């Protein structure tokens, strides 16, 4: 047992810092964080990392991974968060990539992984349906085999950033008798195919992140099936397990707490800074302790993983605690800015001729929206209640 970083680790950290410092796109630094990013903005950092060969640390080296050990991956995450790099779009890198590596055929490994690594293909996730939220197995979008094609009909929802996507990996029903889990298949669908219609869902914070995707007689070549027909459930579960690991977001939460402390150091209360209020301070400290515990819980999980154990149901802990902490940070941040959490300042408002940036301190902009938006984290990706069911069953044997 040992927490020390070796000389090599420290060298690696320096290399990472230097690289980010020199190569993180200037435009992303300048962009007002409150403005919606364009598709190209979102991909610009991805492309830099691709060129460097650092785009997929979590993949095996032979498929384009970095070959980093867990300490190096930990350092990488830390420095990315410290230096405020834009998060990468996870659908290809974190979700689909490992699925293709584990279940795809050689041909799929070739074109899908390449497209993900290069950033040429933007993927979205076709899992949820309006009748099937956390209960994935009850999905109804149907795929019928007709010659060398599947014909897909149905409706997906909560599809994040589908408005930008080139491709969708999609769970479809290929058999309707038997147990609901048994008739599901995993298809790769071209978003430009005829019969696909994407409609925005506006969320309560006013943002457009998620969509409905309607599929009407969409033709999908049979070679776009991943794994065997009707083994989609196995793949879906594998994918959800991977999704949960990334979701803890420890390094970014650390950064968000730093920001919260900065805000509390700027805000006043009875003539003193808010950060000096014992009650507020205790709440921050409590949050930091919880996050530190999560950090080490994640490290312990990664260490197990690197020995070939897991990720088991323990990764559900990371999802639950990670999202709880993210939500509490947004809550406390909203509390910190006081009255200035009220203004609803959007670019649209600015376009009406008012310079919204001059209302309230900079750091207050969007904190309420962020609080509202972050409520999703305990719902999406398998609600936290579902995660607890998984732990109860898989870990405690209840």
């Amino acid at each position, binding site marked *: 047992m040992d927490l020390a970083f070796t000389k090599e680790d420290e060298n690696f950290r320096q290399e990472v810092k230097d690289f980010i410092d020199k190569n993180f796109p200037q435009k992303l630094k300048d962009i007002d964080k409150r403005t919606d990013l364009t598709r190209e903005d979102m991909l610009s950092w991805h492309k830099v990392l691709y060129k460097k060969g650092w785009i997929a640390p979590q993949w095996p080296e032979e498929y384009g991974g970095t070959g980093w050990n867990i300490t190096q991956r930990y350092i990488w995450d830390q420095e990315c968060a410290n230096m405020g790099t834009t998060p990468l779009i996870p659908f290809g890198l974190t979700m689909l990539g490992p699925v293709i590596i584990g279940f795809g055929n050689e041909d799929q490994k070739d074109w899908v992984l390449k497209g993900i690594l290069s950033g040429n293909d933007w993927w979205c996730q076709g899992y949820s349906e309006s009748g099937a*939220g956390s209960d994935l197995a*009850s999905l109804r979008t149907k795929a019928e085999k007709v010659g060398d094609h599947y014909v897909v009909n149905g409706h997906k929802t909560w599809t994040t950033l589908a408005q930008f996507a080139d491709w969708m990996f999609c769970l479809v029903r290929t058999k309707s008798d038997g147990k609901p889990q048994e008739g599901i298949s995993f298809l790769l669908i071209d978003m430009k195919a005829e019969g696909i219609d994407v409609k925005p869902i506006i969320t*309560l914070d006013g943002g457009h992140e998620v969509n409905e995707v309607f599929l009407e007689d969409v033709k999908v070549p049979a070679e776009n099936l991943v794994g065997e027909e009707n083994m989609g459930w196995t793949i879906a579960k594998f994918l959800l397990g991977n999704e949960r690991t990334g979701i803890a977001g420890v390094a970014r939460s650390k950064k968000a707490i730093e920001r919260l402390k900065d805000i509390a150091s700027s805000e006043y*209360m009875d003539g003193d800074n808010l950060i000096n209020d014992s009650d507020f301070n205790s709440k921050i400290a409590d949050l930091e302790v919880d996050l530190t515990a999560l950090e080490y819980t994640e490290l312990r999980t990664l260490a197990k993983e690197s020995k070939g154990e897991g990720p088991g149901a323990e990764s559900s802990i990371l999802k639950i605690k990670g999202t709880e902490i993210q939500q509490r940070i947004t809550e406390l941040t909203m509390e910190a800015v006081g009255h200035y959490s009220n*203004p609803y300042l959007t670019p649209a408002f600015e376009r009406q001729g008012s310079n919204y940036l001059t209302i309230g301190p900079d750091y207050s902009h969007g904190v*309420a929206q962020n609080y509202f938006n972050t409520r999703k984290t305990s*719902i999406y990706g398998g*609600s936290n209640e579902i995660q607890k069911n998984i732990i109860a069953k898989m870990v405690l044997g209840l």
Partner: protein
Amino acid sequence: MDFSFSEEQTLLRNTIQSFIQDNYDFDKRQAIVKSEEGMKQENWKQFAELGLLGLPFSEEDGGLNFGSVETMIVAEEFGKGLVVEPYIQTVVTCGGFLRRANASIKEKYIPGVISGQDIWAFAYAEPQGRYNLNDLTTTATLDGDNYIINGYKSVVSGGPWANKFIVSVRTSGDQRDSDGVSVLIVDKNSEGLSIRDYPTVDGSRASELTLENVTISKDELIGEEGKGAELIELIVDETIAAICSEAIGAMKVLNDATVEYCKTRKQFGQPIGKFQVLQHRMVDMFMQYEQSVSMTYMVNLKLDEEYAERRKAASGAKVQIAKAAKFIGQSAVQLHGGMGMTDELNVGHYFKRLSMIENSYGNIDHHLKKYSSAE
């Protein structure tokens, strides 16, 4: 002790309920929120016709001379409809100041409130002041028969709709002294007053006020110069009581909607309301609501008590309501799943309004401190 409502009070409640039913279903409310003006003048006229704008004023002043229980009823029902028109701001808060002012101010201004001609807003907050009502850098100095006001007021709720403001200023003393606080009436068209309007996250509107040598007659002073702190605290407590009433209305809608949704929404082959964990969560929501109702009744019935008792009632109620608002709001969204996150469903909008109520006129920590210091 008596917890029942009089026939007259029940009649009042029915009146408001009919108004909401006819004029304020969720789609109509959203249309109002998204309109250029952000409120509906027609509704305001109807409030006047129904007598609501004269509720707390004495008969002598042309009002109905109703008490806090009637205000509670109106606010609670408005809370159920997420009404955005600035009733509490104009009638409860600014009306609270006006009905305690001298005869000439009463005569000059109260008729305009009751008739619906004027809309009022209370400009008290300042960027450095947080929830401390006496932390004021906005100053007024007497110059002959006039006050000259300089300063900045932030997040004035309902500001864009108001043509009159009540402004708290410092006329003497240090930045946070309770002595030296005064209350002045400022007209929207005063020279030197610049106003910047914006929408708020809960579907309402607010303004930033900059006052540069705004000059008003000294007759526009409410109460005694320098002695406004007590009056402000009293009226803020009355406002808190009304906001708590609004909150329990909103909570009730959210709780009912959540129970209803969980009875119909199916997952894993059964209504999700059959899952024990969700059942207990809804029971906790219900208990939070009941405890909030209790505190809301209590504060509305204790507004006329001596200071320490009123202080504990108001701060205690605000603490309970804030905790319940957070818990019920977050839980309702969570139990509605993805649907709870959408702009399309009403649930998120109740959640947003409750979230803003949580911190308005002081958050939990602020009121816990006020509570314990009020011995």
